[in-house]
């Protein structure tokens, strides 16, 4: 029973994943394809917008069914390891998009926000999908409430991020070499690096690639297993697997810890594959990424996108405050007898919150609207991702989730 449900849940997630991809294409076509046929442009936009939205709704339902079936199958809510949490975050981004879309009805928003959703699902799939038994500290309904509300807040911020990025693509002058233009290319390349990370992980995983290193830490021998070819190997390590690629260089000496070099290697792969993708796209289209995307947004009112981005953040801020700070404090008080302990995850929740606080104050009092505000919206979600990726995987705190396999 349990096993069947969990298999079913995996399939449902796959269905949702595919539907999200289809939906983003339809949303993109609703704007870019309007000059194709003889149909009236407005009618075309509306029609494809509605189709895209319909597909999104089905995808969200499939995604929700994934959560429910896995929940029943394993007996606890699927938010307790990295795979489950990120898949859940993807769900809340999708729901947030649906809400914002219902207010503003801007189809092209779907072409930016929904890719964030499926990239997240793909990213989740890089982590092991095994059911994780709950350790005692995680067995609390406050934890569930905390994790789900925090994810909901972050999901809404993600829509603010997508709209902020749209604003930048729409308004930054592509004909002049400016700092904004370079930063925009950089930001888009950063997204490509995440995509690159996912692709390389999936490919090497499918190839079942393994390279084992034996190394000496504090006079005890241990073995590290790389799942990607080692560009950076651990210092003073012996490669045990014969067929595996020899490292090009050793990780620097200050990177201590069993998995430090492996993490560095993963980062190198992400950066290289992201850059590779970037070069490929440039060769293919002979345009900067910003330039490539800009026409899709040309008939959109910038003030409208600015407002969508701000609105998303304004809606998300109270949710995030409640979930990531207040519920977290209540849970921490129940679990450890202190509502705040300054462990890295707590501090990063505070950092995220302070960042958005600064965003709101700057917007309100210094009139940071438009481009500045859009940059902050983009940066804000990068802070969220840093919390999720960097803090969880690198600065391992009290309630860190599972490690990359």
């Amino acid at each position, binding site marked *: *029973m*349990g*096993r069947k449900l*969990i298999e079913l849940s995996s399939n449902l997630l796959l269905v949702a994943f595919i539907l999200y991809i289809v939906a983003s294409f339809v949303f993109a076509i609703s704007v870019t394809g309007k000059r194709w046929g003889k149909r009236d442009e407005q009618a075309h936009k509306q029609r494809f917008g509605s189709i895209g939205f319909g597909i999104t709704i089905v995808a969200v339902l499939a995604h929700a069914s994934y959560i429910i079936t896995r929940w029943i*199958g*394993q*007996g606890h809510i699927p938010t307790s390891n990295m795979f489950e949490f990120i898949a859940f975050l993807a769900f809340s981004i999708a729901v947030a998009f649906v809400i914002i879309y219902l*207010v503003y009805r801007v189809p092209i928003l779907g072409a930016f926000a929904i890719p964030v959703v499926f990239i997240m699902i793909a990213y989740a799939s890089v982590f*092991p*999908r*095994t*059911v994780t*038994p709950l*350790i*005692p*500290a995680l*067995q609390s309904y406050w*934890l569930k409430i905390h994790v789900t509300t925090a994810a909901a807040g972050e999901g809404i911020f993600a829509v603010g991020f997508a709209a902020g990025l749209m604003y930048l693509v729409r308004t930054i002058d592509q004909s002049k070499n400016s700092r904004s233009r370079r930063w925009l290319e950089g930001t888009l390349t950063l997204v490509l690096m995440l995509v690159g990370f996912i692709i390389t992980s999936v490919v090497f995983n499918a190839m079942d690639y393994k390279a084992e290193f034996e190394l000496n830490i504090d006079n005890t021998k241990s073995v590290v297993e790389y799942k990607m070819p080692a560009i950076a190997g651990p210092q003073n390590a012996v490669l045990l697997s014969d067929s595996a690629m020899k490292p090009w260089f050793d990780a620097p000496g*200050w990177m*201590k810890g069993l998995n430090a070099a492996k993490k560095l290697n993963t980062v190198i792969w992400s950066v290289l594959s992201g850059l590779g993708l970037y070069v490929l796209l440039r060769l293919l289209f002979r345009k900067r990424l910003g330039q490539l995307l800009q026409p899709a947004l040309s008939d959109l*009112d910038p*003030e*409208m996108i600015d*407002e969508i981005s701000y*609105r998303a953040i*304004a*809606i998300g*801020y*109270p949710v995030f*405050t*409640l979930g990531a*700070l*207040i519920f977290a*404090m*209540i849970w921490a*008080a*129940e*679990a*450890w*007898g*202190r*509502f705040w302990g*300054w*462990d*890295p995850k707590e*501090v*990063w929740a505070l*950092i995220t919150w*302070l*960042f958005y*606080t*600064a965003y709101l*104050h*700057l917007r*309100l*009092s*210094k009139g940071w*609207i438009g481009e500045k505000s859009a940059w902050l919206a983009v940066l804000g979600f990068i802070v969220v991702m840093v919390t999720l990726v960097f*803090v969880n995987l690198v*600065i391992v705190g009290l309630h860190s989730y599972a490690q990359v396999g």
Partner: protein
Amino acid sequence: MNNVKCECGHANPVGTVLCEACGNPLLEEIKQGDSPLDMRYEGAARRSQTYNKSIIDKVWNFFSSVKIAVYMIVIVLVASIVGTIFPQEVYIPVPKPASIFYEETYGFIGKIYYLLGFHNLFSSWWYVLLLLMIGISLVVCSLDRMIPLYKALKKQKVKHSINFLTRQRLKAEVSVPAEWGSKLDQLQGFLKKRRYDVRREGDSLLAEKGRFSRWGPYINHIGLIIFLIGALMRLVPGYYLDQYVWVKDGETKKVPETPYYVKSEGFTIDFYEKEDLPEGAGLDNLQGVIKQYQTKAVLYENVNAGLPGSEPKLQEVARHDIIVNHPLKYNDLQLFQSGQRPKAIAALNMTLVNEKTGDKIGKFKIDLYNPQSEYKINDTTTIKMLEYYPDFEFTKDKKPTTKSPNPDNPAFVLNVISPQTPNGEKAWLFLGSYLPAPGTENIFGYEFSMPDLTNITGLMVRKDKSLPVIYFGCFISMLGLVMGFYWQHRRIWIQTERSLVYVAGHTNKNWFGLKNEVLDVFKKASIPVSLVEHGKDGKKVD
């Protein structure tokens, strides 16, 4: 106080930018232009914008500035990021002093980190000072704005100056339509249906809704202040207790700094079994995955606690199976499941023997948690315990010491006093071995039998009287956030001057919503309007 008189006759306090009654700009430079008016705080007179002479003014203005507030917030933010690069001192994974740990583990950067105090950032004086300053700023900035804003919103009249209406971000001018009187009644009806509060004066009206949401940010700030006060309250003696007790199975122990005693009726560890998870969930090896720690605890109160020198008289007051996330609570005392030593050695069972003859002289038991200073073996022989190191190690200069109060590696110095050794015979005793004093040959030796094992539970003892204040602050803060973000203050002015109808709208958020609303009511009343929307910077948008 010199008042500033507006053309409309209303006397405004010094420093007012837009007349409280009719909204007309009072300053000549603003009156002249045609860019949209800055509607922040309704152009009310704020102390910080009006006075800047005395020291008090300057301090006030410093703390009421949002710019300064953002700086402080950003400094706290950046410092916090730095504070998570390396673990804080309390989270150092190995028992080493911070002065050594950071340099040894992270090299030069670690040393700098330690020297700058980042290893203890969150209780460092400057970090706490910044938080306090943000707190002060919260109070000052709220007072500076909330009171004038409140007064200004209360004093606004229905009719406004034309200069005010034509310089709103959202506006339209229509020539007076036919049957304007009844149309205006209709408009009023539609606006009321949309839950606007409508005030009417002849052919003009002011529709307003959601004014309360303007107080949201201030209520949020008040909540944050309450929160900060709660956090500071822990510094008051008696408001915060942070203690720890280790209790063996069946043992009753005093809860430090309280009149209570706690008994453990048994500590257990549950492990996950195969049945707990769906088969084939991908987990073949559940070996040793812990499901729950549990202490059956009973809490007693010492009813004699108030009588000095009297024996404790215990009365049961609470009983609870403590598991992680479910502490025992009694009044404001909380006991949390926090540590465990399953099957720990509780007592050593020893026999004193004569090394030469092998004769067993007598048995004795050393309770590692409660060692006696003297053990009587028989009528003529006693053992004195001279030293006890529960967690033995050598210091750098080779002196014996104990790492912790927990009996993880117990060591003793024993002295046997007997007819053969009237002056005593000393020996070191470790787990499973003993060592005579150097250069002597001992008469007595020790035999070890199976030690007593027991489960020991570690209970964290907490009392935090500030918690209700903290939660109350959170609640108020959330209330303010919800008010401020999920509602907006919207106003629509419709004013008739001779042959023209002036329409203007203002909201503190969500212009999109306001615009749709204005368009909708005019459409319903079949009055064509073309709304003009100015961007904040005066750029035309639509």
